[in-house]
């Protein structure tokens, strides 16, 4: 199948234009899930204070007396959702599993039963005239429980781990073997066998999750901070047993998401239930503390990596077994070992995914889910192997460079990892590195340099878009995708401008509304590949209709011209070589009864998924400074080089890479959601105690893109860049810390207590 490509002559794709929604954001006019509605009531969730048990009694007498309280929904009086009651009745104990078939997908806490599975689970909802009254009343709801002993301590619960029971994404096996691992290990001259661990982490986008629900008769509209308007619509419809087209979900701007807003959580459905109960719009805006538990996070992982190699660095065996925590309610998987299967050539390999149930909130996708954690283990282990072999870590990676996907044998749609290594090494000055640990000092600081490989799959999902060209030459692009700060509004504007031949000022992109054509969730670095392709096709179709109109219209100066000879620039059609034969879009459409032109675009994965393995690649280089006495770690320099196909906007793309690297720095050195092992309570559930990088933590970051053309991955040749900058950062920093100190930290985050003990 040949795929049409972006017109390289158009010229706006690939240029660093400012964000088209930037003016709204710098003036405070961009509206997040904060639409001021008349007669809005405020909901505040009451959360469980035990991690496991059964609710015996919910006493709302004191809470009800707070002035301004409208009603309090509890497990005693909340409206019964027939769909969920039926599901749980039919499934019995098996209702807690992978979630296949459950109306809400994952298990939500919708006051349908009295089970408590984690500390912080929503167990009641106060609705009041004001946020202040609802907050006060929520604190006065008294709940008694029949408690059971929870499992919260990951290490203690590891004995109960079991293999993940389902295919990953519906098709990837959870465990794999290729070649003969034992023979590969026997043939090895050097072996590394290490265990790496990563902690619970919490997304903490700056905008807390928030939902406003407003009913109008039997139809409901949600303003929700979500990466997935159609997904939310589906869950609301199923949970409430109403038609999908009676639910509208709007999400024009999202104040950060990072995977956490990829599927609806309990408060979204509760807001809809509450709004119906009180007969007026209800807003539930979570508090920062409520971001820990009820809305997902990255799970704990423990990963064992075994490497066998010849003296020259050739890998003979690679084993990677990962165990990740999930909740008591759902079997959610952090896919740690997927990258291990494809990243290096190694004939003998075994990988597995296992899960362990804890009484904590269900984990979810968090920026580069699986790859970020898995590559910390794999890329740290490779660094350890490089030291065992006395070999440069880049040379070791090049020795095992995979020229085709080692797991499937498929060729890469494109791969420029070699170029990433060399470009990064050049910009970083890697050649000057003395590999000996503690060989570089700067006063009291031990200086270390480390590197790691980055990778993330280039996936896409079915997407659709409409491009309308109006008689005034205004172009409106419609697609129910989302801009999480990723630049979607901007790059779709650029794609449409080039495809049609108009300036970006003529284009308005509409996103985040289920009244627009269906698009997938904006996650997994898929938005550009999916929605970008659909918009390109829709805009191209609209352009074709314009050209057809012109060449068949006897009154047009372009009448009779061949399609291929028509050019459109800045909204003006001309015949190639005959600049006098021209006509503006306005002139052309004025003769057609003022009818707009409408182009449709549908994009879905095609044969390319059968023919090619498709991934982005990169290399991360980090310099750290560790205080010799105090063990404090500061990152002083990072260079990241990436090959991700076509870069649609170098300015927004660079920003996304800076952001991913910053997120990765947090993972390496700071982020750790702490729980009390006795009662499952989240201990550091605020931004003072859950540390994310601040201005003063972020040094000079250099980002470089390798020029890469990919004619296979999708019609626009862009692989997606949301997650890849998150990968490789933690191991690059961990490897740099080892180089600085001679202490290998295999347990994130790398904090001074661990370094001083090492």
């Amino acid at each position: 199948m040949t795929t049409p490509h972006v017109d390289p002559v158009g010229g706006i794709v690939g240029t660093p234009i400012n964000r088209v929604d930037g003016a709204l954001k710098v003036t405070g006019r961009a509206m997040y899930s904060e639409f001021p509605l008349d007669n809005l009531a405020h909901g505040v969730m009451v959360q469980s204070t035990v991690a496991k048990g059964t609710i015996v009694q919910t006493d709302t007498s004191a809470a009800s007396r707070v002035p301004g309280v409208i009603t309090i929904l509890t497990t005693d009086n909340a409206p019964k959702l027939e769909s969920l009651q039926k599901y749980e009745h039919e499934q019995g104990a098996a209702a807690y599993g992978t979630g296949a078939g459950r109306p809400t997908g994952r298990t939500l806490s919708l006051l349908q039963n009295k089970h408590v599975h984690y500390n912080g689970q929503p167990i009641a909802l106060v609705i009041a005239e004001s946020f202040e009254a609802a907050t006060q009343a929520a604190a006065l709801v008294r709940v008694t429980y029949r408690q059971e002993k929870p499992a919260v301590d990951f290490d203690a619960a590891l004995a109960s781990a079991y293999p993940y029971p389902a295919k990953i994404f519906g098709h990837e096996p959870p465990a794999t073997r290729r070649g003969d691992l034992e023979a590969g290990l026997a043939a090895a001259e050097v072996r590394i066998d290490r265990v790496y661990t990563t902690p619970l982490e919490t997304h903490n986008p700056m905008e807390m999750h928030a939902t406003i629900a407003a009913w109008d008769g039997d139809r409901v509209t949600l303003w929700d901070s979500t990466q997935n308007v159609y997904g939310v619509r589906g869950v609301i419809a199923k949970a409430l047993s109403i038609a999908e087209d009676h639910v509208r979900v709007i999400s024009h701007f999202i104040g950060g998401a990072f995977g956490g807003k990829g599927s609806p959580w309990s408060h979204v459905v509760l807001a809809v239930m509450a709004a119906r109960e009180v007969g007026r719009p209800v807003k539930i805006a979570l508090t920062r503390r409520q971001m820990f538990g009820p809305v997902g996070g990255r799970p704990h992982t423990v990963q064992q990596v075994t490497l066998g190699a010849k003296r020259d660095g050739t890998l003979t065996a690679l084993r990677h077994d990962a165990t990740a925590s999930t909740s008591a309610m759902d079997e959610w998987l952090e896919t740690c070992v997927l990258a291990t299967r494809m990243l290096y050539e190694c004939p003998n390999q075994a990988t597995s995914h296992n899960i362990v149930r804890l009484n904590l909130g269900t984990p979810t996708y968090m920026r580069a889910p699986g790859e970020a954690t898995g590559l910390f283990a794999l890329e740290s282990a490779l660094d350890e192997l490089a030291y065992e072999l006395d070999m440069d870590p880049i040379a070791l990676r090049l020795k095992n460079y995979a020229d085709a996907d080692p797991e499937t044998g498929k060729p890469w749609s494109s791969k420029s990892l070699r170029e990433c290594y060399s470009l990064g090494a050049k910009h970083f000055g890697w050649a000057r590195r003395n590999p000996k640990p503690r060989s570089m000092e700067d006063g009291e600081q031990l200086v270390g340099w480390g590197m790691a490989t980055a990778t993330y799959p280039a996936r896409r999902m079915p997407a659709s878009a409409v491009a309308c060209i109006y008689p005034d030459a205004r172009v409106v692009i419609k697609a129910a995708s989302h801009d999480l700060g990723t630049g979607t509004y901007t790059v779709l504007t650029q794609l449409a401008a080039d495809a049609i031949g108009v300036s970006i000022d003529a284009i308005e992109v509409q996103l985040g509304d289920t009244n627009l054509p269906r698009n997938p969730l904006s996650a997994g670095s898929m938005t550009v590949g999916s929605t970008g392709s659909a918009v390109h096709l829709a805009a191209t179709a609209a352009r074709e209709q314009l050209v057809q109109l012109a060449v068949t219209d006897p009154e047009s100066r372009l009448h009779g011209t061949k399609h291929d000879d028509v050019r459109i620039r800045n909204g003006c059609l001309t015949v190639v070589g005959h600049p006098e034969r021209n006509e503006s879009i306005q002139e052309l459409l004025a003769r057609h009864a003022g009818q707009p032109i409408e182009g449709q675009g549908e994009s879905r994965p095609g044969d390319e998924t059968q023919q090619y393995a498709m991934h982005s690649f990169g290399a991360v280089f980090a310099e750290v400074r560790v205080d010799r006495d105090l063990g404090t770690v500061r990152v002083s320099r990072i260079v990241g080089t990436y090959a991700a196909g076509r870069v649609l906007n170098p300015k927004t793309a660079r920003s996304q890479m800076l952001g991913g690297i910053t997120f990765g720095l947090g993972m390496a050195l700071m982020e750790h959601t702490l729980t009390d092992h006795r009662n499952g309570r989240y201990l550091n559930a605020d931004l003072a105690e859950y540390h994310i990088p601040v201005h003063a933590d972020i040094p000079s970051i250099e980002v470089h893109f390798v020029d890469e053309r990919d004619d296979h991955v999708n019609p626009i040749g862009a692989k997606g860049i949301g997650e890849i900058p998150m990968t490789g950062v933690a191991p690059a920093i961990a490897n740099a810390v080892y180089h600085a100190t001679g202490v290998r930290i295999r347990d994130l985050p790398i904090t001074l207590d661990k370094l001083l003990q090492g």
Partner: protein
Amino acid sequence: MAIATEQQEGVSLLLRINGAPRRLALDPRTTLLDALREHLRLTGAKKGCDHGQCGACTVHVNGRRVLSCLTLAVAAQGKEITTIEGLAHGDVLHPVQQAFLDRDGFQCGYCTPGQIMSAVALLGEPCGPNDDDVRECMSGNLCRCGAYPNIVAAIQDVRATGA
């Protein structure tokens, strides 16, 4: 019952916001941030933590940067309050707003009003000249998207032109 009545019916107060007087009846527990967002429909100041830990709610009170989530609305009476909505002159952006736009000093945009209000205040503060000084002075404003290098560049652009 006096307190309960005040909570339900509100206390009457007068706030001066972006140069204009605004009269309100509010639950006395209402923060300046919630007064702006929930009662005056000025949603530019953002709620990122409600605990003074993130800076997203930063506004100016009498020209100084203040966390509006830690300020009770009643305590802001008689003072000049400036929010992000009051920074531009019509369609002409404040130089800091323009610099954020040009340097791509934001992604999702949710921390941005707070970053910009802090940055504008910083121009009048005794902040040292180097990037590290700016980083220190801006560290109360968190950005989860990781726009920090671009924010520092934007602020330094404005300081270099003496705007």
